């Protein structure tokens, strides 16, 4: 169900500009990995290359290899759409589809692709996904209401439920709590802890306490200056990164001396 991720010499470009340089990283299945680092250091860009979402932006491309359980998602002939069904993503701001009900939002991955299914199958998927996102009890009575009527935290859990409904192997989260209040953030963090039983979770966060709370391993990215590419500086167990980093830059960052 969940897959390991290996990046081998991965470079990401926007046109001629190299945004991320030479990333090598091995992410274990059934774990939570946090990417931290200052703004513009390429952590979000790298995250988006894991499900080829960077290709949505004009001129963006990746070089190198990115392996999902040993299969290169950048191999010739691989369809980015297939990659994205295996690697789900949750975004910075909750983005439920405004034209759809809560139920349809959960089923969006199937419905948008034109997959037909019986009502009982669909009901099963909706309940399972919402339970998986700790949202079932809160919304089970109003599944036909629009998803935009929920609170911010509920919307974000709805988006998580939407991405686990298509049963991916990996879930990427791009600062999923940055638009939420502390209580909603706590609910999401609890959820992330549960998700790692079944999925490989990769989360980008600006909040170092959050990384320390939820992540098994943490990767620190940094840039040398504006116009320079972002680099993976250090990648280790979260406790090591925060308590005993081997790199000076990492130490400066986690101790709050810059960034």
């Amino acid at each position, binding site marked *: 169900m969940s897959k390991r991720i290996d990046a081998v010499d991965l470079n990401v470009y926007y046109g001629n500009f190299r945004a991320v340089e030479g990333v090598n990283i091995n992410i274990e299945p059934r774990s939570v990995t946090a990417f931290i680092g200052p703004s513009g250091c390429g952590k979000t860009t790298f995250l988006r290359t894991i499900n080829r*979402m960077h290709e949505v932006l004009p001129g963006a491309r990746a070089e190198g290899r990115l392996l999902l359980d040993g299969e290169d998602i950048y191999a010739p002939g691989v369809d980015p759409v297939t990659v*994205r069904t295996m690697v789900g993503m949750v975004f910075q701001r909750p983005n439920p*589809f*405004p034209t759809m009900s809560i139920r349809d939002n959960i089923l*969006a991955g199937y419905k*948008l692709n034109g997959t037909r299914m019986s009502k009982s199958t669909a009901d099963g998927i909706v309940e399972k996904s919402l339970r998986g996102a700790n949202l079932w009890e809160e919304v089970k009575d109003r599944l036909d209401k629009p998803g*935009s009527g929920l609170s911010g935290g509920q919307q974000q859990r709805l988006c998580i439920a939407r991405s686990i409904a*298509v049963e991916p192997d990996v879930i990427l989260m791009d600062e999923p709590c940055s638009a939420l209040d502390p209580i909603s953030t706590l609910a999401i963090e609890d959820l992330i802890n549960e998700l790692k039983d079944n999925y490989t979770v990769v989360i980008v966060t600006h909040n170092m306490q959050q990384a320390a709370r939820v992540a098994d391993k943490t990767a620190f990215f940094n840039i040398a200056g504006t116009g320079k590419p972002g680099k993976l500086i250090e990648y280790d167990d979260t406790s090591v990164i925060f308590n005993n980093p081997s790199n000076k830059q990492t130490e400066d960052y986690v101790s709050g001396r810059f960034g």
Partner: protein
Amino acid sequence: MTISNDTAAPQRTSVPGGKKKNSLTAGQKPGWTWIAVLAGALVVAAGITALLGGGAFSWVGWLIIAAVLYVLGMYLVTRVIENARRATDGLWQNLVWAAFLLALIPLISVIWAVVANGLPTLLETPQLLWRDMQGVTGSDDIATQTEGAPLAGGFLHGLVGTLMITLLATVISVPIGLLTSIYLVEYGRGGWFSRAIVFFVDVMTGIPSIVAGLFAFAAVQLVITTFIGDGPRQLQMVKMGLTAAIALSVLMIPVVVRSTEEMLRVVPNELREASYALGVRKWRTIFKVVLPTAMSGIASGVTLSIARVTGETAPILVTAGYIATTNWNPFDGWMTALPVYIYRQLINPTAPAAGDPSAERAWAAALVLIVIVMLLNLIARIVAKAFAPKKTGR
């Protein structure tokens, strides 16, 4: 300040919190100034109008002169009581107001003319709505005008023609317009080709409607003479509903493209990304996420463009001809559209010697046309308001 001879100062100290002036409002003209100036302007204007007009007193002239005098009077009074800056400010404020009132005059006049001329006819002879002009001759109109016979004829053929031509134009323009705007927003990505399209769509917006008509006529004529022949019968075939629909499409496509493009750009990118991240293909994302989200705006833009071409006269006049009978087939034979009907009835009355019945029919038709166009505009507004999806977020 306290030792000065300023009149406001002792008042302020003697009655704190009273309704006396304080130093901030000192030197202002009293609140009733404008009434005084207005009254003065009206009286003086009446005198001037009477002098200028000689015997006849012109109400319009009186109002115009009074308005000019009022604006000037307010300027001078403010300038004397307050200062030149305030006076200039007030002058421009009055002029801006005057501009607004001035624009209301033609609007009210037009609507009044149409309703006053058209409504009585339409109420008296509602048959106009479901009769055409077949068999109506000058003698019928002469009978109406001189002997009070009921008004003959009607404009069913105009309604049918407008309906069919507009429908056909919509069928041609909406897919092209929609697809083009989708190309611009979703695929073009600001490349040179999409910039060229944007530029030429702008150019197209400026094509005079009569030129669009000439183009459609010339194009269809060229096609028919090339593929069917150039005998008089074939040349006759050029004028039909389809030719008019092509002409209207030239006018309609740029409107549809611009409004749809705007609506698609408003759809947040986050929704597209959410869909892609679920493993949904781009074309399905466009169809099932982007278009439904923008649908109300697109529908309202399309309705507005239909409203615009419904009122077009010139392109239809040169492309669809003018006949007295109802023609439902836009691919064969001449067709009359409602605006063309109005125009022909006014310019070439059915009975040249007795133009009143024709004018009555024209005004009734104008009323119906305005109602149709206004309804379309209203629908567009309602659609845009009522069916807009609620914004995401809190």
